[in-house]
């Protein structure tokens, strides 16, 4: 259990980043020129006594952490003890996260400092500190956020993105992004309900700006690793959070999955996202928005969508019959339709069984394409034609030997069911 599936990756990446004070300071320059340096620590925290780590029973007495790391965390432990939340601690967390971006307690403290600094920058706050913060010249005034607040959000999102660059699978970094965006969405919701000043167009402009940036950030992460699990679940969260405000998002998302599947047909994450998008789209089939929303929540796909998606899936199967994802997608699509509308779905299933056999497997082109073979077996069983499934299962037990026991079990189930049926028939 735990979030260290990639401990070795993280450790190796950090090994490149770690170093002494000079390296820290150089690194800080690239992260944020407005944050202080570790060499500033003794002066900024002159009133604080650093606290060493209690890491458990030590058989050997000497502790030899990387130099910069130990110093920075000794200060952090000290401010934790005093429960200090302040701008100087905000800066300290940057230094701490530079050394270990997975330290979740540092992120907690950082978020509290962020909120404090954010509220100190509000228009109504008496002690607004603008010293050192650049206010964009000529930028449109947004009554939801002061310029300084917007700057802070933007800078914090950039900081998080920079940290995320070498740590793409770090749970804490992704969660931090989400918490920042949630704050923005809350402000937007407050404006919409008239709780704060600001017109709907203000909030819409604000959201638009962050929306576009966020999607492009996620795109950039997926550009590097198109299967990054964190990036995908963040994307789903974001898209769902925005779908009521921006219903067109889902259409764009569908096109995005088409593009990614085109790039790599075996990207299972893209196929999963496609399924998610389809089941969360508004449809035009219903007269009013609330009915449409209800249908969306019940996750029923209109039949014409089932047809077009099955067609899409078949096209992908023709391109690569050895791909699990496309076959699973097709079978799941047809099964779901069958459970909702048996007659029409049965016809569709028969049609696709024919296509799989006569287009994909024609002339024995792919005798060992197990995803297609198993799709055929599954679909026949759904049509209550287990005898038709049998030859496919037998072929699978031959061409997919690592799973022979599974395929044999499927055959045994069919045999047992037919014996039971026969026995029942004889008794009547």
């Amino acid at each position, binding site marked *: 259990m735990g979030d260290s599936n990639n401990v070795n990756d*993280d450790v190796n990446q950090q090994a490149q980043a770690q170093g002494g004070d000079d390296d820290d300071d150089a690194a800080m320059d690239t992260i944020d020129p407005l944050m202080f340096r570790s060499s500033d620590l003794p002066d900024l925290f002159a009133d604080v006594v650093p606290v060493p780590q209690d890491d458990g029973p030590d*058989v050997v007495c000497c502790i030899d*952490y990387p130099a910069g790391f130990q110093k920075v965390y000794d200060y952090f432990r000290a401010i*934790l003890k005093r429960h200090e939340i302040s701008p100087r601690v905000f800066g300290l967390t940057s230094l701490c996260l530079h050394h270990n971006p997975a330290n979740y307690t540092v992120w907690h403290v950082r978020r509290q400092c962020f909120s404090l600094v954010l509220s100190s920058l509000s228009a109504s706050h008496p002690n607004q500190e603008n010293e050192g913060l650049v206010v964009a010249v000529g930028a449109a005034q947004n009554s939801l956020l002061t310029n300084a607040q917007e700057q802070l959000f933007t800078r914090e999102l950039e900081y998080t993105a920079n940290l995320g660059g070498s740590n793409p699978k770090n749970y804490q970094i992704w969660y931090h992004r989400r918490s920042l965006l949630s704050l923005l969405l809350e402000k937007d919701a407050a404006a919409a309900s008239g709780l704060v000043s600001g017109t709907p167009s203000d909030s819409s402009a604000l959201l638009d700006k962050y929306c576009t940036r966020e999607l492009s950030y996620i795109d950039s992460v997926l550009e590097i690793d198109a299967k990054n699990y964190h990036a995908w679940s963040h994307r789903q969260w974001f898209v769902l959070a925005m779908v009521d405000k921006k219903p067109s998002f889902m259409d764009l998302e569908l096109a995005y999955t088409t593009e990614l599947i085109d790039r790599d047909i075996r990207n299972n994450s893209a196929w999963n996202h496609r399924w998610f998008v389809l089941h969360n789209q508004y449809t035009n089939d219903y007269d009013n928005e609330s009915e449409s929303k209800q249908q969306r929540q019940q996750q029923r796909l209109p039949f014409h969508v089932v047809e077009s998606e099955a067609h899409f899936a078949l096209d992908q199967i023709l391109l690569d019959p050895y791909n699990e994802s496309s076959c699973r997608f097709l079978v799941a699509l047809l099964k779901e339709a069958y459970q909702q509308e048996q007659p029409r779905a049965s016809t569709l299933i028969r049609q696709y069984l024919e296509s799989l056999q006569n287009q994909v497997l024609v002339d024995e082109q792919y005798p060992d394409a197990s995803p297609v073979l198993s799709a055929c077996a599954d679909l026949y069983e759904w049509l209550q034609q287990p005898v038709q499934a049998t030859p496919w299962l037998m072929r699978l037990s031959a061409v997919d030997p690592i799973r022979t026991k599974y395929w044999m*079990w499927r055959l045994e189930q069919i045999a047992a069911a037919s014996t039971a049926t026969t026995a029942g028939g004889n008794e009547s």
Partner: protein
Amino acid sequence: MSGNKSKTSGSIALSILDYSPPFYFHLHQEYIVGLAGKMERSFEGAMTEHLRMSGVYWSLTALSLLVSKEDVDRLMSVTQSAESSAKNESILDWLFTCFDERTGGFGGNSGQDGHMLYTLSAIQILTLVDALDDKRFHREKVINFVLQLQRPDGSWAGDSWGEIDTRFTYCALSALSQLQALDRANVDLAVDYILSCRNLDGGFGCVVGAESHAGQVFCCIGALAIACSLHRLGEDGVELLGWWLAERQVDSGGLNGRPEKQADVCYSWWILSALSILGKVSWINGDKLASFILKSQDEEDGGISDRPDDMPDVFHTFFGIAGLSLLGHLHNNRANEFNFRQIDPVYALPTDVCRRWNLPGQIVVHGSEEVGDRLAHYARCDFYAR
């Protein structure tokens, strides 16, 4: 080349491929015991400082599968600090410094905020070493920490910051079960939430809609087993998931976590434990998997890595050994002279520990099929019952 010659070279090549190293039991013991000292001095130790509680759980449980409880205690200074120790602190002493008064949970190390992940690890350690009755353990506070993190839709947050993940549902149900407080949570709602995370392929992701992932599957199936709610998957659901899990096995014999990803030893645990609970371990090729794990051992310094020829770490060492245990490789193999303890697939603790504490759970069985003694004490979900 004559037909015979090519056959011979073919069979020599095959035997090289088939060669599985033995299980380097003593080396792994040395590796695990040696880690404690290394952690404090190393860069890797600094980078994993925040999750030390889980690291200790992996070390202690892995070692518990190899040696006796008394030896684990002695070798790892579990209840008594080592005589040579300058700090005079045992693992248990340290563990209780990780209790976070403010939240009522355990952090990953002393000074860290309470979190579901490390609260479970702490409880697992206490269950393992039989210290749940320790006066320093604030049972009621910990139970409340867990309970108040359940959300109205049945899901669980990791801490008050609100990140939701099915991993935390597993942590919560396992923690509460070990503290005999499962009935104080809304278990039915928790089960509803888990089921809402079921995907087109029968698998589970971290939240509703997220891609199926073997680690998340273990968490969801483990949680359903603890909640005795496997029947809610339905017979078809169990079979579809069982097949998806079996499809994770690739040519090398190893298991991946999602389609088209690389095999990794840790999936030997996530997938094998789920298959054990669902009664479908036979659906993967156990010999080939065992071979993959054995080849991922470090034959010089001990420890197991994510795949052959990589550096070992305690995480993969634990899950590799646990995987071999679930396969029966450590127990049925006549070449092994040792009496290794079995691991339980639901709680990821030695089976004898789970039985001693009567930890409740459920498994799927199929009619008259034999259930090994590892799982015999669990409630049965039998879709074939007449």
